[in-house]
């Protein structure tokens, strides 16, 4: 009788252990990593608006302005597009009396290698205010962006500070 009870207890314990080991286990171990961009964008020169007349703001040097210059360094060839968009609105300005008409353009100003980058400008694709460059070579490229803002109805720009932003992106191919 005692032996039977012991046997029964042992079987029950075995079943219990078996049930314990059957519970699902879960664990999540992170794998961390940092990717350094192979395309680095820097502001080389902040642009300046000149004000040749009451209703125009322009970056043309002849009108007292200065083009914005953006530098893009690429360390991995043929992997990125550079998309640079001239401004089409003010990021900050006084309250405007009317709509503003924008024009702008981006050009290659300087390259670090003529052989591989010399044709960047002629090979660019223009999509409205945005210019797309195929960065086929490693090195540095400086892009200059011009911008002209004209107040509608030949109304005068109100006095105050105006800021417009040039958007530059490295788009992986």
């Amino acid at each position, binding site marked *: 009788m005692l032996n039977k009870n012991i046997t029964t207890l042992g079987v029950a314990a075995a079943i219990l252990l078996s049930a314990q080991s059957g519970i699902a286990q879960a664990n999540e171990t992170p794998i961390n990593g940092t990717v350094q961009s192979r395309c680095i964008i820097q502001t*080389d*020169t902040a642009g300046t608006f000149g004000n040749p007349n009451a209703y125009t703001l322009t970056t043309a040097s002849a009108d007292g302005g200065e083009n914005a*210059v953006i530098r893009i360094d690429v360390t991995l060839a043929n992997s990125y597009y550079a998309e640079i968009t001239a401004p089409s609105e003010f990021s900050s300005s006084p309250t405007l009396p009317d709509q503003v008409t924008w024009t702008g353009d981006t050009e*290659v*100003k*300087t*390259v*670090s*290698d*003529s*052989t591989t980058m*010399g*044709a960047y*400008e*002629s*090979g660019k694709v223009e999509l409205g205010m945005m210019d797309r460059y195929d960065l086929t070579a490693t090195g*540095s490229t*400086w892009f200059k962006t011009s911008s002209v803002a004209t107040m509608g109805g030949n109304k005068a720009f109100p006095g105050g500070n105006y800021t417009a932003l040039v958007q530059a992106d490295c788009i992986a191919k």
Partner: protein
Amino acid sequence: MQKKLLLLLALGFWPSYSYSDSIAPYYGYTGNAITDQSLRWSMGNVLPDGTPGLDIQNVIYGYKIQKETGEWVTVYVQNEFAEGAGEGYIFRERDDWKPGSLAGTEILKAVPVGNLPRALWGDGSIEVEGNGSVTDASVVYTYKVTPCFDPQFDPNCPGYKQPVPEIYEVDLGDVYDAVAEGDSDQLQWDPNEDEQIDDEELSEEELAEKEAEEEKNREERQEEALFEAGRAELFAMALSAAQLKDATQINIRSYTQRTIPGGVYNDTAVLVDNDLPDAKSGLRNGLAQQLLHQQMVAMQYNLTK
């Protein structure tokens, strides 16, 4: 933009090891090597040679290409080897501006050249091949100066050796050797040059003749000496006479030709007495002397008591 690039380069090459200030390598960069439109420059004007341990590390240049879009223009930025340092170019960078590249596009390029000693660098130039030109060119060299290139520059330099002054050993025999032979720079006494005639080798006649000759020479020498002495004496006498003459010719007329006012000068002292008696004190004195004289004479003949 170029200044930023230079700053980045300078920071990149900033020494990460510890040195005392005086011997720590330092870095710098030149001004624009191109000063005119000739696109040629002399390195002597850009970075004068003569600083030991000066190495050029980078060449940074820029220019704008001017060409038709369809043209292929090749531009070389280059430095020849310094004279005697080698043939050809120590640095030559080629830029191909292929068809499609636009006029006015600028290039800015930093070319590391390692650490090439300044002494190897010759004159530089920008050469354009093809139908095009360059404008707004600039060429700048970055360099590093290692003061301890010569370990003796500073006692803190590795490998510095305490200088030991060079003391030249001078062989006094080389300067003057009284007994040296064959040295043409010295006046030497050659005993063979003197007429050493052994008297024993002479005959009696020759000996007598020699003695007579020596006697004659001796007399001549004596005569000559006396003549010279006499001449000197005559000279001294003549000198003395000249001095005496000079002394007697002193002008004393200014003293002798004084005029005295004329007239009669009468005697002012008149003696009244005709007989002048001897002074008694004198008589007494004379008597005393006479007595003393007689006493002395008596002493001579033992007459004194």
